[in-house]
């Protein structure tokens, strides 16, 4: 009967699964190896530290985005919310460490919550809801900063700055924050009921409802999470920059989506990993770093090269997946 068939398939499936999962990782290893050989400064400890630090902010946002995308949604508001989070943290830092940290988390979490409620309760498309909150968060940021005229500074000696600037073995704290969140995120996704609900919601929403999955609640939670994490990334950035810079985060949502997809998460939902996202962040940051290492590249060519790289990575991945 089916025995022969089903016995043969798992090994095949397992082998392709390994390749699919590792597609981005293979690309990353290759990129790093080549860069290391071609550009002598690429492998310097300083460069690697900076690379990791720059990646950590994006990673924090992208982890939230991973959850959102697995539910079949998308969150375009993270770039604005990230900037808002930074401004709020800087403003809050005058009232001490706790306020500086809590304020962006709460406000950005609230924006995420509203996104989630609108998406889950009213059946509006996530793309458009979060596009609106992208505008809203920017607007709010401009209100707080008097149309961008005020940039709130964080005193250099405050404990909050330490959160962004402090290091262990030269590696900045944000790297560790991102790492912890990645591990936690992976665990939540794969080892908790909530994680299973996330997969089910994105995999087959109608069925998930019939299976008793709290689809609406799950959606509300992932968008809240995404907003909160974007706020946290903003707060970390503010601590790092020692000020609530207003002009950051424009277009960051596209970076976040790109790394999540490069990491093998399906934009249509139902499948994805946090580890893949972290690898995706690594890839994008290495690409940027390499463009910098080339040094002589005309600034107009830089985006052409980024675009081509992005294309190569997704096409490669797609081919591996076949």
């Amino acid at each position, binding site marked *: 009967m*089916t025995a022969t068939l089903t016995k043969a*398939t798992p090994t095949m499936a397992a082998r392709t699964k390994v390749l699919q999962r590792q597609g981005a990782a293979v690309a990353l290893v290759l990129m790093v190896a080549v860069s290391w050989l071609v550009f002598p400064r690429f492998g310097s400890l300083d460069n690697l530290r900076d690379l990791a630090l720059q990646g950590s902010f994006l990673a924090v946002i992208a982890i939230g985005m991973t959850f959102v995308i697995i539910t079949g949604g998308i969150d375009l508001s993270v770039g604005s919310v990230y900037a808002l989070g930074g401004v709020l943290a800087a403003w809050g830092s005058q009232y001490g460490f706790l306020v500086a940290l809590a304020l962006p988390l709460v406000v950005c979490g609230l924006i995420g919550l509203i996104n989630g409620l609108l998406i889950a309760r009213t059946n509006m498309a996530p793309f458009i809801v979060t596009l609106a909150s992208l505008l809203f968060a920017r607007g709010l940021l401009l209100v707080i900063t008097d149309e961008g005229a005020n940039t709130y500074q964080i005193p250099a000696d405050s404990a909050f700055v330490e959160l962004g600037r402090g290091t262990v073995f030269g590696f900045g704290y944000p790297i560790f924050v991102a790492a912890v969140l990645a591990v936690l995120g992976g665990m939540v996704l*794969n080892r*908790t009921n909530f994680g*299973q609900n996330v997969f089910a919601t994105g995999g087959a929403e109608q069925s998930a409802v019939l299976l*008793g999955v709290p689809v609406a609640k799950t959606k509300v939670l992932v968008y809240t999470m995404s907003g909160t994490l974007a706020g946290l990334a903003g707060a970390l950035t503010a601590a790092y920059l020692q000020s609530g810079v207003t002009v950051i985060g424009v277009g960051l949502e596209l970076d976040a989506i790109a790394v999540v997809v490069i990491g093998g998460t399906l934009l249509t939902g139902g499948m994805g990993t946090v580890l893949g996202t972290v690898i995706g962040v690594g890839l994008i940051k290495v690409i940027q770093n390499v463009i910098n290492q080339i040094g002589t590249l005309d600034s107009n060519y830089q985006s052409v090269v980024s675009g081509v790289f992005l294309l190569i990575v997704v096409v490669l991945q797609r081919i591996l997946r076949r």
Partner: protein
Amino acid sequence: MPTEIPSSPVIEVAGVTKTFAGVQALRDVDFTLQRGEIHALVGENGAGKSTLIKVLTGIHTPDAGRITRDGHISTIYQEVNLVPLMSVSANLFLGREPRNRFGLIDRARRDADAAELLRGYGITADVSSPLGTLAVGEQQMVALARAVAAEADVVIMDEPTSSLEPREVETLLGVVQKLHEEGIAIIYVSHRMDELYRICDTVTVLRDGVNVHSGPLKELPRIELVSLMLGRSVKEIENHGTTAFGEDHHADAEPVLEATGLTSKPRINGVSVAIRPGEVVGLAGLLGSGRTETAKAIIGALPIDGGTVLVAGTPVPRTVKAATRAGISMLAEDRKTEGIIPNLSVRENIVLAALPRLSRFGVTSRSKQDRIVDTFIKRLRIKVSSPEQKVAELSGGNQQKVLLARWLCTEPRILLLDEPTRGIDVGAKAEVQALIDELAREGLAVLLISSELDELLDGADRLVVLRDGSVAGELEGDQLTREHVLKAIAAEVTDDSDHASTH
């Protein structure tokens, strides 16, 4: 079978009405489910069975009426409603995963439990692989296992056997029996009379959303049940007689379709089928034996490693488009994901494949479309409020008819039918079968895949039996008996002929 019927209702429905945008799916329905009984819910396609179930389980809120539930309900819905991208074990235990002492999901135990559980249903697939890689029938069994394992007081099954083949039907009926012995009440929806009479105690008949009969099943003669469902007198039905499905067709000598050595690893391996115009060839086999793959390979929807397809002696390029142009059409097995375009109207779904023919210079002609659509709605008795109704709003059986119409209006020379009567009510089924006959008589070459052995035996002139992706034998003439087929399908299941003899 039923030992005692305790008379405390687990579900009581009074005066329920449910309307969807103009369609009254349920009208003032009363319904009572007694503890421990197996209650058949029958009716034509679109009678409101699935809707009643969704009202019972709270998916739909009724417009009027009262529902009293006493106990936990677990449901297997009509279409497989699991998550294809998640693993089999994750699907089985979604919402009640085994935890370790840190409160995290214990994946090893989940897989072990799942494998153990499924073995009881005769499924040995890898439980950590995505559910979507399982055959539809296997998925149906997983859904069954999940529903049963939920420890419910009531289990509702909406056409659970529609994608199962005989052996699995037996497994399922065995499970139903076991549940029954444990005192669990069951609502059982099916269009297959044999099953109903084998296991059910009571019956409720819905017609056009109205409960036209509730009562013990055993005392109700089949013909009367059918007459209740169709709303026609017993006499009328008797006169009409059983369908003449399966009369011998006059086939030409030269095959119009010749598929040779079709191979697509690991699913099919050198399958060859030839069909002559006017001939109905049945494809028999177990779940996963490669019947669907064979059909898909013929029409070019499956990448193949080897093999050729000839139509009237000319090779056909390996794309669906080319195959369609050459005159091959295929009715897909899974109408939800491979058949209907849910957003589009019934009209648009019907004319979809024939659109280029109904257009001039790429501009469509509405009047030509309307004419064709009208013809087919009448001919197949598709129940719609208007041809402009969204196809997603139709009942399962009516959707199936829409798809049949889609293929018929392309005027194909070769028709591949993968489970054409799946989920179709008795009346419509006879019609579809008659239609197949008629088409064959008109000179069409038909490949018929069905899980219902009787349908194959009656309808086909010749049977090709598949086993593990290869042709295990061909049966013709006198050999077209249940015993012969079962023997050819697989040696291990010959004992199923015992069941066969029970009816």
